[in-house]
């Protein structure tokens, strides 16, 4: 990029960011009723509540199980994991001998609690369609160990909105709210792989036009800024000139002692040497272009501030997505990607990752349908060096609770894949949240799941779920480990 252009462009972008951030904060405050904010504050004194999980078995990312003497949760984070240490003050202690503890499961591609929408606009936000007061929905997710998910905006094809990362944190007073961990996590684009060929071409054209319009919008803003600057300079120049002339005229008579002429300090005459375009009448203030919120969202994608997640199943649509990304210098992820195995080399070359969904339903196909081969697709992508992640897909929000089973089905058919790692560590890192989630380690978020047995065994049950250090789910059917120590359970 030409440095001269870089300056103003960045300035413009920064301004969007400010305005956008302000709007998000406002919207969050309104829509959540402060629930998200309250959750972040420790409820039990400055140190927060302390829970000590003793003798639980944990599993490292490659599947090796070890028993640890203590997992200490303080406030919203894991404080300690390892040998027994001295803990001062009030704490809830649980003996979890025989039980397993894993990080809360993360679904990188989910439709949980999403109400179907038909509209498609860059200003649509996924979280607005999330059913956040559905306690049954949360309970089902917890029953299967799921605590966090990326929710794409869905709708008809085209640019459909922005996706959000949501954590299933409880609201105040036992109500359910869900916490937005990351608003605007991605710009969601759907190339409509299920539609007819002509429809798909029209969709692609429409998307291209929207990006072009966004660029034109930015140019009009830049032109306006330049014009405004020029205008300000002209005004300033004229004012200086006037002041100079005034002082010149004012100085003249003083030495001679002659009284000022009858001439008032009128605007300088053209005869006095001023250029014609500096005439007062011709300095017009430039007109400010109207705000375009859709274009502003798209500009953030064009500036690579947010990633674009492009739903594309057919190989031809995936290629189209790659062309689109190159044309507009977008950072993209392919979502769905049923036929990604056919274009693995192109994906590798473009360094574009793929998010895969549910393995189910890839059985029968007719000639006019694309072939879904999610597990084989993952194997081919790995071999080609393409980064991929596995979620549950958006076909049915109910699928999200079984994201681990989906990962297990994939792991059965792809060598070197460990199902648990896919939906914890890998998922958190894929979402760019690896520093906070997806691992049992000090300073990570205290989102964890207690299982009655090995989490990959069919017969194991989720006994407890902690989100943000708080107990949000307890299985009534399984025998409870005895709670001891200084505190009562909430």
């Amino acid at each position: 990029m030409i440095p001269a252009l870089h300056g103003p462009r960045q300035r413009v972008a920064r301004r969007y960011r400010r305005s956008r951030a302000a709007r998000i904060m406002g919207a969050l405050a309104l829509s959540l009723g402060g629930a998200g904010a309250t959750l972040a504050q420790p409820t039990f004194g400055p140190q927060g509540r302390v829970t000590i999980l003793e003798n639980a078995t944990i599993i490292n990312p490659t599947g090796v199980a070890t028993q640890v003497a203590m997992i200490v949760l303080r406030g919203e984070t894991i404080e300690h994991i390892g040998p027994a240490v001295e803990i001062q003050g009030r704490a809830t202690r649980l003996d979890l001998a025989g039980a397993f503890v894993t990080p809360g499961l993360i679904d990188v591609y989910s439709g949980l609690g999403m109400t179907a929408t038909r509209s498609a606009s860059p200003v649509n936000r996924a979280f607005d369609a999330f059913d956040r007061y559905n306690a049954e929905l949360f309970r089902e997710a917890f029953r299967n160990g799921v605590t966090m998910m990326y929710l794409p905006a869905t709708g008809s094809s085209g640019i459909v909105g922005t996706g959000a990362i949501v954590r299933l944190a409880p609201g105040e007073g036992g109500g359910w709210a869900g916490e937005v961990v990351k608003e605007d996590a991605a710009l969601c684009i759907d190339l409509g792989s299920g539609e007819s060929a002509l429809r798909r071409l029209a969709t692609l054209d429409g998307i291209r036009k929207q990006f072009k319009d966004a660029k034109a919008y930015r140019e009009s803003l830049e032109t306006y800024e330049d014009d405004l600057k020029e205008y300000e300079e002209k005004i300033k120049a004229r004012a200086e000139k006037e002041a100079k002339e005034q002082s010149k005229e004012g100085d003249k008579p003083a030495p001679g002692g002659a009284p000022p002429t009858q001439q008032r300090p009128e605007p300088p005459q053209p005869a006095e040497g001023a250029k014609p375009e500096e005439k007062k009448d011709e300095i017009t203030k430039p007109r400010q272009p109207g705000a375009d919120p859709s274009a502003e969202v798209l500009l953030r994608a064009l500036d690579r501030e947010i990633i674009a997640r492009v739903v594309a199943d057919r190989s031809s649509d995936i290629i189209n997505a790659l062309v689109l990304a190159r044309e507009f210098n977008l950072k993209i992820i392919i979502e769905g990607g049923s036929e990604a195995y056919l274009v693995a080399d192109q994906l590798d070359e473009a360094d574009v990752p793929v998010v895969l969904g549910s393995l189910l339903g890839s059985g029968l196909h007719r000639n006019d349908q694309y072939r879904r081969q999610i597990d084989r697709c993952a194997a081919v992508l790995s071999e080609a060096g393409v980064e991929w992640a596995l979620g549950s897909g958006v076909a049915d929000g109910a699928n999200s609770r079984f994201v681990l089973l989906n990962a297990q089905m994939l792991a059965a058919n792809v060598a070197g894949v460990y199902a648990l790692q896919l939906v914890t560590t890998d998922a958190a890192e894929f979402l760019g949240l690896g520093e906070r989630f997806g691992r049992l380690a000090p300073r990570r978020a205290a989102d964890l799941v207690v299982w009655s047995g090995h989490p990959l065994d069919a017969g194991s049950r989720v006994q407890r779920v902690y989100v943000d250090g708080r107990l949000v789910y307890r299985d009534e059917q399984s025998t409870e480990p005895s709670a001891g120590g200084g505190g009562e359970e909430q």
Partner: protein
Amino acid sequence: MSVRFPLLAVAAAAAICGVLAPALAMQERTAISAPWAVGPDGSLMKDVTLIIADGRIERVLQGPANVNVDRTIRFETGVISPGLIDVASTLGVVGDNVERKSVFDPDASVVDALDALSATLRAAGQSGVTAAMIRPAPSGIISGAAATVRTIAPQGVERLLRADGPLTLTLGPGAWDVDLGPTSRAGVLHELREAMRSARSGGGTSRLARMVRGELDVLVEADSAEDVDAALRLFGQYGLSPAIRHTSDAVETAEDLAENQGVVIVGPYTFSSEIRLLAGPGRLAQAGCEVAFSGGLPFLEPDALRLSAALAVRYGLDPAAARRGLTINAARAAGLGNRVGALTPGADADIVIFSGDPLRLDSSVVEVWIAGQRVHHASPQPSQEEDGWRAW
């Protein structure tokens, strides 16, 4: 189809050449051992050795085994399981699997619509589903005899395990037909009751007559609780205990179904199934029913059969009962309980070695054996030639 001819040919060749041909491998006595196996009651048994001879399981030994066999195959890890059976599949069926000219087709046989070369059959076999009961589509009141086939049948091994049953009946909306009638629940019951009455008084050897005499096993599709109730009352009058396929209201009908003694076929369950449905198998087992799973093949992938069982376990079914539901109960529903579905002496050696518990979905298929012959083994990098993208 017959197993006799190739054996005779091989014996003749051996007699002439004086050399054992490789094809004779199935006559060898083979010992297969693994640290775990699925027992006849569905629980996992430790340290099991199977002795296989003549395509059948000769003996099942537990603990350290020292037997005189021609070859020994030892798996250091993994679980030996009877081949899994999908009890309500349309695998390999060409075209429409029901006759739409009539609602009474007791003499139709779905086996006539089978394409034994269908790639979906082989793909199911490679996923551990070694047999499938193919049933006529649940429409029409009596839609003919189901059939059970092996998904993989090596040379010299019969593909068809059973061609003549059970007889399939449908109650509920599936049997209503605007053109052919009846069009209501009451109408279906009325016509079926009349047909069964006249079959009993008429005697003879028609399938319907044999059914009411209790000579032919029956599978009834009963979609809702009302249909289950009607089926139990109607067949109860004849002293029959049909296998009932019922998923929707199993939580409500569990007690009644338990009295019937027949296997209850449930599923398929998927990621999107409601909690109420998923809780069904657990409730049925609690009431004393034996359940068998249908996996929805080939509309879902072969692993979906194990998924149905795994989901049922997560929502309350005992793991051993779930393993029975994938094997012996399915065989019983197909009327083949003495032949396949369990690692017991005398049963066909149709077995699968999984890398772990078949209920654990990340367990993969290591080897598949049909009638004592190895027909599939997983390679670390599955080659495209071998399974042709699992060839769906």
